[in-house]
């Protein structure tokens, strides 16, 4: 059934019990969202004593299933005021699963004004005082300090200076196998962790029993089919070679690459910041274009981007960050963008929200459009905690408010990512309707039995988009419960046996007989629960709308966002 660990930061008591019956059949985002909906008062202050933070691996995490090492983190978000699931790679999740831990919950707030490290081992859980030097330290160095103290290979979940300052775009960073960073990026969960004065959680799986599999032979055969569906699909080669940054040229061509704070969907320099150029640069300099964020990943979309001397600058260098700084803020320089990405990681902030915020800083005249050096200096203020740094570290909505802007691309307070909703209308509906706030990954996965949209969806037109967004969101919520990386869905789109193999693996591991329809039902129930939480938190369908300025035309297609409220509300009407 799995262990359920509760860490009370007020009393410093730790309870390790069996997973409650009601959570036995769910995992990952299914578990975090159900737990938050059950135990977190929807009207609570997200930085107060009634918010709770939960980490949960997925159904298949810790097994030999390819790409199964993701972790879900859940809480009420200080950024959106609604429910949040934030998903990450790194080593933490697989360690939890191998130790038989279904979830760890952090609740309460200590009276003392100091930071703690929660240590999780096979011998139990302790709450130590955080090493003094880690407080205020950049994340890369802080992870080194913690791994020196607790063990080179321990998993680490950590907040940076931004989380200590409880900034609303603060993230939780997670060590990967090389002790670089991955991120539970969106929604300010680092601020929640900071409000509980938890500087870091370290996890040591020495002596862990590993994951029990009910039918090992059936599992092995399903895992083989699943891995084959991934590795034989061209998306593995595409993402492995070019990273997610492959999308710059694609979206630019499609006219949906937001440029100059969402004024147009195409620009002339996109190729300079795209995946092809990034990979050519890394190859020329001795970087690593192909890299996996967790053990068992066969897609390997990550990379090590290096400077002219071949020295590591940053990894997990994503399309979203590069788009926001390179196209939206017009910084035509991948190296500066890489240093900015590094700086976001050191401070421990969401590199989407804060990068969109940089564009708004330019919109407000604080720094010139396209000035990468000025942008980098501004970003460095985040971890210094200057007033301007704090504003930027609270994300796009905060900059918009502080500088009196009306052109603020956010939904439910969270910055809109790298696909203009007017030119990619299905994406726009997902931004508007997901409980997560504007989130491109909320409608990211396809499962072929769910996705029964007939015909051809034109991204510039309204037809078919409501069903598409709905079905993508249902499938995504399901996949987020498995511990799988969402990118598996790219292969499953074309290879239905990949989805069947996924269901077969879950059945073989747990001794179940779930069908594809059962899996779909899980996705639907998660969405309903999340929506229910938000309603109880005070959200109405007025929150499921895009900013007014998207009524303007977006070149080159000169399309507008013209869905009515009733049409948008149909997405979640199931």
């Amino acid at each position: 059934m799995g262990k359920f660990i509760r860490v009370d930061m007020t009393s410093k008591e730790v309870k390790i019990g069996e997973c409650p019956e009601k959570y036995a059949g769910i995992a990952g985002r299914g578990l975090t969202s159900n737990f938050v909906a059950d135990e977190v008062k929807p009207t609570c202050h997200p930085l107060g004593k009634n918010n709770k933070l939960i980490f949960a691996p997925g159904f298949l995490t810790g097994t030999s299933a390819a790409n199964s090492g993701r972790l879900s983190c859940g809480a009420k978000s200080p950024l959106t005021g609604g429910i949040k699931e934030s998903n990450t790679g790194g080593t933490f999740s697989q360690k939890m699963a191998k130790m038989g831990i279904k979830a760890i919950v952090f609740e309460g707030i200590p009276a003392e004004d100091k930071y703690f490290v929660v240590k999780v081992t096979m011998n139990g859980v302790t709450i130590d005082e955080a090493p003094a030097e880690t407080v205020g330290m950049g994340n890369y160095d802080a992870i080194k300090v913690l791994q020196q103290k607790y063990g080179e290979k321990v998993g680490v979940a950590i907040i940076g200076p931004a989380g200590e300052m409880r900034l609303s775009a603060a993230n939780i960073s997670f060590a990967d196998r090389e002790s670089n960073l991955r991120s539970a990026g969106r929604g300010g969960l680092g601020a929640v962790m900071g409000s509980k004065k938890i500087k870091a959680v370290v996890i040591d799986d020495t002596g862990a029993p590993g994951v029990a599999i009910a039918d090992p032979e059936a599992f092995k055969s399903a895992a083989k089919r699943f891995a084959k569906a991934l590795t034989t699909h061209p998306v593995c080669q595409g993402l492995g070679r070019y990273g997610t940054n492959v999308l710059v040229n694609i979206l630019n061509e499609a006219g949906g690459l937001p440029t100059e704070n969402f004024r147009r969907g195409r620009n002339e320099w996109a190729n300079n910041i795209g995946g092809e150029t990034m990979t050519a640069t890394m190859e020329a300099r001795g970087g690593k274009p192909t890299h996996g964020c967790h053990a068992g990943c066969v897609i390997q979309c990550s990379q090590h981007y290096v400077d002219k001397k071949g020295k590591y600058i940053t990894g997990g260098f994503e399309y979203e960050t590069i788009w926001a700084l390179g196209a939206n803020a017009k910084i035509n320089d991948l190296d500066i963008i890489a240093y900015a990405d590094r700086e976001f990681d050191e401070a421990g902030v969401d590199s989407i929200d804060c990068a969109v915020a940089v564009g708004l800083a330019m919109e407000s005249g604080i720094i010139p459009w396209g000035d990468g050096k000025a942008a980098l200096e501004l970003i460095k203020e985040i971890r210094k905690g200057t007033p301007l740094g704090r504003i930027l570290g609270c994300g796009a909505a905060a900059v918009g408010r502080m500088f009196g802007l009306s052109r603020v691309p956010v939904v439910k307070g969270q910055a809109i990512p790298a696909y203009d909703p007017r030119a990619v209308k299905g994406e726009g509906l997902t931004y508007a309707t997901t409980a997560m706030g504007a989130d491109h990954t909320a409608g990211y996965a396809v499962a072929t039995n769910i996705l029964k949209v007939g015909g051809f969806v034109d991204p510039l037109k309204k037809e078919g988009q409501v069903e598409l967004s709905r079905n993508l969101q249902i499938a995504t919520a399901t996949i987020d419960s498995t511990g799988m990386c969402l990118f598996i869905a790219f292969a499953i789109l074309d290879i239905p046996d990949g989805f069947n193999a996924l269901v077969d693996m879950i059945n073989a591991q747990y001794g179940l007989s779930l069908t594809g329809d059962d899996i779909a039902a899980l996705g639907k129930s998660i969405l309903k629960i999340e929506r229910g939480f938000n309603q109880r938190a005070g959200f109405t369908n007025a929150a499921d709308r895009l900013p007014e300025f998207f009524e303007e035309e977006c070149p080159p297609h000169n399309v507008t966002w013209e869905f009515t409220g009733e049409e948008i509300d149909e997405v979640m009407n199931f």
Partner: protein
Amino acid sequence: MIELRAFMGLADLFRERNWPSPLEVDIQGEMTGAQLLAMLDIPPEKVEVVFVNGRAFTPPMAVLTGGDRVALVPPGVPGTYRVLLGFKKLD
């Protein structure tokens, strides 16, 4: 003339052939994307989508005339975008 770009592995193919990107290609009248690929000796299985003026088509369905902005996309684009941008027809 059409203005032709190529992405991902197809950009490598252009580079191997010493073709600039964008490449200017002289076409007479109208032609389909499939015909363009044949003319340029690009194996059809290497191209999933032809963009014409920012709209995505399969190579046989793409219709090009002079003045068009065209781009070639191989298989391997992350999947949701293939659906959201209309590359992949669902049935």
